[in-house]
């Protein structure tokens, strides 16, 4: 069996999204999963794709336990979700190249060219995804899901938003994949759209499989579906039975596909890929940096009015104004960086890859740190001019580096939390600022001490506090990011 699901349950508080699902899918099978809204289809696919954990029960893919062989299993899975998991501000080529790096593909250029040809986007490869139609985006999303040659392709409502012509194109594409031996598990409300005759269909209702058989004719199946689901609603599911399944002959799953087209995942290479992706998007739009620059300058202007910063007072207040400005502007940047990931479902795309979870934290944090340091490269000379102080010393630069590192790491972690809250527009500063106050106090005092002519060794507790804070908070962020990233 390629996919073995046994007694799978998933509860959200008192609500059971899955209530004991059992499903076996053979190598190369094409299974259509149907069910009313809230039946648990998406939850089931997300658990199989390792984007969510089950409450109980087991999933085995190609005979492997995802809990023990997560990275290997992720290489076997391709997932197409409601969202495209594509970055709007990157081109088709850049999007696929990023995912190819995350999967460690060796033949990435050839594979990308082949897939773009196959989904009929070769001539639009350098266009930004935001300029694509819905159908084009969906075709590119299929290419993304197929990029690493997965043995199992999970497709969640792939026909949503497609016009009839685009839907036919997708059906043709999926049929081709099935003929090539790829195992497909697809959820849909539109079984009529698919070439469903002689394909296996599974009906999921209230978190349980209530039907599992081969479709003889589409109209008959649709009538049966309505009857089964309506009857289950009316009798609360008490009398429903799963009919015996007339299976199509299926092959047993072989061992995981040899990774001839893949190389061992380089941790650093993947971190660099995440950073490069973020910086490429930022270079294209410049929306984060420009907002941070303008905000930082405005903050300094307002501080100068509010605190009457002139003469000696200005020099004394310079470190505080500098760090407060960095903190506030940094919060803006962190918020936008994670929102960009959230809007396209990009975090799911990162989590689907076989990369270690800390790659995502380090990659995102490093990208944010580079953006913050770019801001500081302007703020330091600006502060030197506005407040008549000299901030150009190795000590001050070391404090800036240490402070920014801690801020970017913990800020990235908390931005990943804040972006998933109902009050995402305001939650990041509320979560982040109280947590970085000890860091800011230490950074301001250390910078002030250095401006007064003290040596690094004379700063005593402030630099110790800065380093201890960085170490503690960074270790905690590394240990806990996995729980934040998981949807």
């Amino acid at each position, binding site marked *: 069996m390629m996919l073995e699901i046994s007694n799978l349950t998933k509860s*959200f*508080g*008192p*609500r059971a999204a899955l209530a004991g699902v059992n499903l076996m899918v053979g190598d190369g099978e094409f299974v259509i999963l149907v069910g009313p809204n809230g039946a648990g289809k998406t939850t089931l696919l997300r658990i199989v794709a390792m984007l969510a*954990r089950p409450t109980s029960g087991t999933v085995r893919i190609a005979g492997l336990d995802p809990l023990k062989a997560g990275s290997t299993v992720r290489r076997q899975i391709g997932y197409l979700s409601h969202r495209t998991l594509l970055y709007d501000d990157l081109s088709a080529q850049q999007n696929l190249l990023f995912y190819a790096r995350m999967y460690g593909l060796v033949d990435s250029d050839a594979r990308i060219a082949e897939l773009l040809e196959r989904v009929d986007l070769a001539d639009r490869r350098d266009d930004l995804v935001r300029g694509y139609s819905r159908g084009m985006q969906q075709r590119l999303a299929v290419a993304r899901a197929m990029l690493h040659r997965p043995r199992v392709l999970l497709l969640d409502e792939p026909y949503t938003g497609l016009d009839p012509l685009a839907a036919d194109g997708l059906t043709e594409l999926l049929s081709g994949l099935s003929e090539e031996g790829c195992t497909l598990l697809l959820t849909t409300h539109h079984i009529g759209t698919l070439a469903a005759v002689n394909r296996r269909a599974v009906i999921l209702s*209230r978190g349980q499989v209530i039907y599992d058989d081969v479709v003889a004719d589409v109209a008959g199946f649709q009538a049966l579906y309505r009857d089964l689901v309506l009857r289950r609603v009316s009798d*609360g599911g008490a009398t429903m039975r799963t009919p015996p399944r007339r299976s199509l002959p299926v092959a047993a799953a072989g061992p995981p596909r040899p990774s001839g087209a893949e190389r061992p995942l380089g941790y650093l290479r993947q971190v660099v890929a995440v950073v490069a992706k973020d910086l490429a998007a930022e270079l294209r739009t410049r929306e984060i940096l420009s907002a941070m620059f303008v905000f930082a300058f405005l903050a300094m202007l307002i501080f100068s009015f509010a605190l009457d910063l002139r003469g000696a007072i200005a020099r004394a207040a310079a470190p505080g104004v500098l760090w407060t400005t960095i903190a506030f502007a940094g919060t803006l940047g962190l918020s936008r960086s994670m929102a960009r990931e959230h809007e396209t479902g990009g975090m799911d795309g990162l989590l689907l890859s076989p990369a270690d979870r800390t790659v995502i934290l380090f990659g995102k944090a490093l990208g944010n740190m580079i953006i913050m340091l770019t801001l500081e490269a302007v703020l330091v000379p600006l502060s030197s001019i506005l407040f008549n102080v000299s901030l150009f010393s190795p000590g001050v630069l070391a404090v800036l580096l240490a402070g920014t590192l801690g801020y970017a790491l*913990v800020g990235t*972690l*908390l931005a990943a*939390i804040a972006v*998933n*809250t*109902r*009050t995402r527009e305001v*939650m990041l500063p*509320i*979560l982040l*600022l*109280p*947590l970085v*106050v*000890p860091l800011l*106090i230490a950074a301001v005092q250390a910078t002030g001490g250095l401006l007064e002519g003290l040596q690094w060794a004379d700063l005593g*507790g402030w630099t*110790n*506090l800065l380093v201890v*804070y960085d170490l*503690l*908070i960074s270790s*905690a*962020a590394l240990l*806990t990011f996995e*729980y*934040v990233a*998981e*949807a």
Partner: protein
Amino acid sequence: MIGRESVMLQRKNRVGIVLAVFSVVAFLGALWMVFDYAPREATMGDVQRIFYFHVASAWVGFFGFFVTFVTSIVYLVREERRWDIIAASSAEIGLAFITMTLLTGMLWARPVWGVYWTWEPRLTISAVQWLLYVAYVMLRGSVASPEREARFAAVYGILAFVTVPLSWFAIRWWRTIHPQVVSGEGMAITPRMVQTLLSSIGVFTLVYVTLLRQRIRLAHAQDALAALQLAQES
């Protein structure tokens, strides 16, 4: 799970009632010790007596956050709802006690220091800590999925606790005008004062345990109610 909770909730809350009665009696005893048994401090006068509430509530606040920290770690490892309930309950109670610490500290500071508030490091860290757990409570209220809420809150509960040792050691790292009651040379107060302080700490801890038990019970009742409502809707 729900069945077991329902049975538990149907039982009479005898332990809770005993704890509540005992807490009230013990609190009255502590009040007597604070206002009668403990001697009048020579320099500060009667205003010093607020110190017994200030230190005791600070201890319970720190302890409450420590419980949140530990149970948050356990929740992330075991993913069992009960640990999340304890973490949330303890944070809320800890926040109430730290609020009391800040208020009693300000009431004490006005006649002694001449100001309600001064930005010395330990006070600043206490304020930061208060804000951290306000943020913790706000975070819990703004996540739609209960599972995500528990995970996010557990992570934040762990990160927030990092500031507790910073607060504790801040008095030694930085120059401060905050009175240093406990030092390497022993306590700077009389034996009766020590006995009163320890009694206050004991009583406040008992109040914390009573409140925690009731809050956990309430959370289980909310879960059971939600399950019943869901079953009825189905």
